[in-house]
């Protein structure tokens, strides 16, 4: 039997807690991924991103010395970033609005809230694979489009030059 078409898909888990890291790795292997790499903090994660070239990243928010927000900034904005478009799923127990907003503004693609459930993990991965988001580059941001919901009745203000044509294109 031939290997599935997604057999080569590679994931990177960036998580400082060894127990949680092992769990996430095991979950990804259970999904059928063959190549799952690990890092214990954002700095090591960035190095692994460079050497392993994963197709998506699962990252914790709170880590030392480099946390998930700074890691995401390095990936999106760093001059030496190997792939600024790589989807980043932020695994977090933080419900504090400010932290979540900071992560979103750093360029996180999806959030996976703790406690982790099999279904939520599957949904986040399906989202990044099936519906890759447009990226936005402006003066102070580079990352996935932060607008998740489209209000059909929204009458403006329109903040982007291409909002009108984009209005029809965004999935």
């Amino acid at each position: 039997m031939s290997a599935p078409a997604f057999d080569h898909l590679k994931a990177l888990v960036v998580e400082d807690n060894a127990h949680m890291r092992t769990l996430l790795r095991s979950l990804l292997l259970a999904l059928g991924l063959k190549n799952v790499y690990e890092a214990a903090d954002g700095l090591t994660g960035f190095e692994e991103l460079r050497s392993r070239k994963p197709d998506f990243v699962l990252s914790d928010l709170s880590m030392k010395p480099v946390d998930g927000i700074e890691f995401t900034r390095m990936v999106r904005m760093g001059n030496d970033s190997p792939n600024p478009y790589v989807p980043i799923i932020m695994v977090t127990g933080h419900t504090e609005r400010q932290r979540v907003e900071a992560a979103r503004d750093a360029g996180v693609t999806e959030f996976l809230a703790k406690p982790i459930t099999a279904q939520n993990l599957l949904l986040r991965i399906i989202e990044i694979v099936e519906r890759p988001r447009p990226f936005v580059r402006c003066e102070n941001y580079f990352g996935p489009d932060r607008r998740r919901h489209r209000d059909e009745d929204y009458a403006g203000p329109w903040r982007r030059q291409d909002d009108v044509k984009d209005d029809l294109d965004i999935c």
Partner: protein
Amino acid sequence: MATQSNMRKSGPAADIIPPHAYPPPLRKAQARAFVENLMSDAVLERTEKVLDAHKDNLRSAVLSHLGCLEEDLEGGDFRAVYEQAHEIRGLAGTAGLKYTGRIAFGLCNYLEAMTRSGGTPDVAVIELHVDAIARAARSGEDFQALGEEVTSQLSALVRRRLGEPAKARS
């Protein structure tokens, strides 16, 4: 539908890079095959089994952090207390210890608020939380109704204490 004429620019211009303009994790056909695989009951069942298999390991980790938490409280090291409570909060929910996680979350919130305000944390508030975390985690949380009551009482306590003027707290 919006038209060019009603567009009003109120922020900096932005370039939009559509998904087909950068390398996606998987090409369309591969993505479809991958998603079909993920949506199968067998995969969901397999991942749930993995989660179940790790629960004991995660519970052991919670208990290990709890031991450190109690030691750090004994030593009066509130920074370390916060670090341990934060670890417990991250692990407990996935370990199936819902109330342990919620109480640890409350303790983290309290300590974060005290750090932000520059106030001195009330040891009694911390002790109550640590005691509740210990009882919840060590019992394996066999107490639905009591768990709700304890977590809501502790939340009310933190709200009251944070609402009090700084002078009264010290």
